[in-house]
């Protein structure tokens, strides 16, 4: 019976193997992106001594006059229309705090929840007291609306 055995060899770096030259402009923090002051600065950049400097490691994206650096890996950043799955961490007055692996805990307002008895009902004090009956700490929820509000996602 014939057997083929291969000895271990050092792995070739990825860029050699795929043979492609990536056309993206890759930067690391501290790199100057441009010295042209006509650009608006977006996420992942900061202004230092009349130069636009990158603050994360990633690829530079340019949309007309806006320059931003898209980091390779970040926490979840909510967009309108995303469907998220989260776990309730806290029950507060008139809202729940939901953990969605983003920079801050997401917020689920009592007023945005569909309660029995009609959607346009004003939330009363009894509704607030009954909040724990609907969702408690540790419950898993999924939600299909989203909007950004000062850094946290409102579900």
């Amino acid at each position, binding site marked *: 019976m014939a057997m083929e055995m291969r000895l271990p060899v050092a792995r070739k*770096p*990825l*860029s050699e193997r*795929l043979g*492609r030259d*990536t*056309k*993206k402009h*890759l930067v*690391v*923090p*501290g790199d100057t992106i441009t010295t042209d002051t006509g650009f608006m600065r977006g996420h*992942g950049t*900061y202004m*230092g001594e009349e130069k636009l*400097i990158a*603050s*994360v*490691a*990633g*690829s530079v994206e340019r949309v007309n006059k806006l320059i931003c650096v898209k*980091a*390779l*890996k*970040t*926490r979840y950043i909510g967009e309108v229309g995303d469907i998220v799955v989260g776990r309730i*961490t806290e029950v507060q007055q008139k809202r729940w*705090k939901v*953990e969605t692996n983003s*920079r*801050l*805990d997401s917020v689920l307002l009592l007023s945005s929840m569909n309660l029995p008895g009609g959607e346009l009902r004003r939330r009363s004090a009894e509704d607030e007291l009954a909040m724990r009956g609907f969702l408690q700490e540790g419950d898993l929820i999924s939600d299909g609306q989203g909007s950004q509000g000062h*850094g946290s996602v409102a579900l």
Partner: protein
Amino acid sequence: MAGLELLSDQGYRVDGRRAGELRKIQARMGVFAQADGSAYIEQGNTKALAVVYGPHEIRGSRARALPDRALVNCQYSSATFSTGERKRRPHGDRKSCEMGLQLRQTFEAAILTQLHPRSQIDIYVQADGGTYAACVNAATLAVLDAGIPMRDFVCACSAGFVDGTALADLSHVEEAAGGPQLALALLPASGQIALLEMDARLHEDHLERVLEAAAQAARDVHTLLDRVVRQHVREASILLGD
């Protein structure tokens, strides 16, 4: 110590390096999948592992939240088998607390904390001299890996002074010999110092030279780390697709 020459007549140190040479450095980013960012660095025999979680919501007391900045939390612990004598308490002792505090000061200077409410950085080290420098270098790579915005890399190196010559990147033997040692953390692009620490006696005339040796060594470390990060970013972006 009788018979131990830290610097020979020909200018060689105990491990065969010249005065300004660094130890061999190897670094890897993204070693843990479950953390937001992680990195591993070896500087000679010193190995440091840094893990970053964040930015995330403040856990524990809400009162610690700063309204305009992120809270940076650093913890240093060394493995029980890492020093000459087996350490019974890996964290909580004075040296670990002091190291944690120094790391926190260094990174608060470099991370753009105004953009987030809280980050937490935990650093774990096994040591053979130059622990502060290895920790800072590992933590820089880990913070980069986590995508947390930073002003610039933070590169650190230690330096000492023996027989009128400034030595860069001290090993454990050289540190234990008891001469003056200086630890420097630098932001290379702007040349700004994030942290400078020395707790020994050194004549002020020599300070300039030792500082310059440490700064040059930190810039050399930056060249290396820069290469590691660019390679990592290039590979990751190829894998993620265009």
